[in-house]
């Protein structure tokens, strides 16, 4: 399998990471060598194997539905790069 520049552009769009031509070429090289290494998994037959999603073999605990933290607005806004009193500010979305 080979990951071409078109695929790199597609993944970069999905990842919301902009790439120029030079970076795309470097990434294609790196990803191809990593995927060559990953292909090793195809040696194994796994048709009847259950996928492991979590090693913690416990069921989630139920808890009562109560508010534990209140009035966190200032804390939530505190680290925002741009805010206007109660809101996060982003570039204009609707024309």
């Amino acid at each position, binding site marked *: 399998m080979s990951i071409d520049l078109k695929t790199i552009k597609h*993944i970069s769009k999905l990842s919301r990471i902009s790439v120029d031509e030079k970076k795309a070429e470097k990434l294609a090289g790196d990803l191809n*060598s990593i995927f060559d290494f990953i292909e090793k998994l195809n040696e*194994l037959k796994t048709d009847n194997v259950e996928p*492991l*999603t*979590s090693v913690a073999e*416990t069921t989630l605990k139920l808890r009562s539905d109560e508010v534990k933290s209140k009035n966190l607005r200032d804390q939530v806004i505190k680290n*925002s790069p741009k805010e206007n009193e109660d809101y*996060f500010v982003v570039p204009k979305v609707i024309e």
Partner: protein
Amino acid sequence: MSDITKQSLSELVENIKGKKLSSSEVTNAFVERSEKSKELNAYITEDYANALNKAKKFDEKPNLDLKLPGIPMAVKDLFCTRDLRTTAGSKILNNFVPTYESTVTQNIWNQGAILMGKLNCDEFAMGSSNETSFFGNVQNPIDKNLVPGGSSGGSSSAVAAQLTPITIGTDTGGSIRQPASFTGTVGLKPTYGSCSRYGIVAFASSLDQAGPMAQNVKDCALLQEVISTYDEKDSTSIDFKRNEYSKELTKDIKGKKIGIPKEYRVDSMPKEIEDLWKKGIEYAKDCGAEIIDISLPHTNYALPTYYIVAPAEASSNLARYDGVKYGFRAEGENLIDMYEKTRSEGFGAEVQRRIMIGTYVLSSGYYDAYYLKAQKVRKLIKNDFDDAYKKVDAILTPSTPSSAFKIGEKTNDPVSMYLNDIFTVPVNLAGLPGISIPAGHDANGYPLGLQIIGKAFDEQNILNIAYAMEEKINFKNNITDWWIK
């Protein structure tokens, strides 16, 4: 006392409890040594003035019943610390100041310890040499221009150089055990679910665990006892009966069955690693353990599995860094352009590479072929361990396939960098505890480590084996303070 920083954590605790040393004297000593050690670049953020103040306050009204009374300590910069910048080694969190505290660090402060600063690490813990950090390389105190391992490279360097008596790291694929091995220190990755992940910057949530790093096994056991608690704020935290690891520590491991997995004898393994392993087996026998050959047949598939599972989880976890809610923002022509520029300028090359791998393996049409396949192989790897533990109590392996390498030596080849974690990654995939202890030196005098892997929740047992073997090995770290002018 001029040699305060040479004392182990246990000695410092004893001296503070016995009123032979004050917290201020101890904190001062570690702050002074840290100040003289800037060339190691172990710290990202220093908080010395606050630390000295807190020590003074502690001395005014000392509570000597605590487990870490007035002990100064720096921690990996992946743990959120309230009101002190937390960067995860990334430009994208360069100005992030948490408004809350991670559970693990809170547990430490509750026992009387004092924060000195935040330690360097690979960006978002993605790396094996601390070279992916936005804040630059960390020097290994063992030798100039030698990597300290990664991702907890600032932590391993700081403990080995005695800038902090003890520290905590995080381990997703080897990030505590590999740097411990590279610096001649002890590092424990606990069972998944033992230490809360609340307030730790997330990398791969089904693999991440916090753990102690120390100069010896006893100190490591004491810190593990402090940080391991059930926490309802982490839905994968496990409510099990935790030992008092330091109190129950014993060198009596007679009759313990220790497995030697033949698949860990990899083709490219240097002779000195092979020899170290053989020596380790002899030490374990000397301690009264019984050695049993075992097989972990899917070992060779662990790294490829890890490089699907970890990037997939990372791509999802790191989606939150969008320049809106916190962290770095690059200006863009519109919202999407702002996202794309923020992430392109804010993340380093290795993090971008892993986000792209993860996005690809989770994308429509590839999910079954990669992600689902990897989860199935992960099950086979866990089954290998389950089968082995029907016959043995613990498993002994080398910690790493080589000693520490030079800065820049492996940065151009991601796959060769990934191979560093070949012996540590299977342990994370199976959710087991593993400890690395220093066990010898290579031809250059660089430290080499041995890893002891335990059953889930059996930290006490591997700590005991490590404690018994540590005495036989009698390892001495050879640190010359070359960086102090």
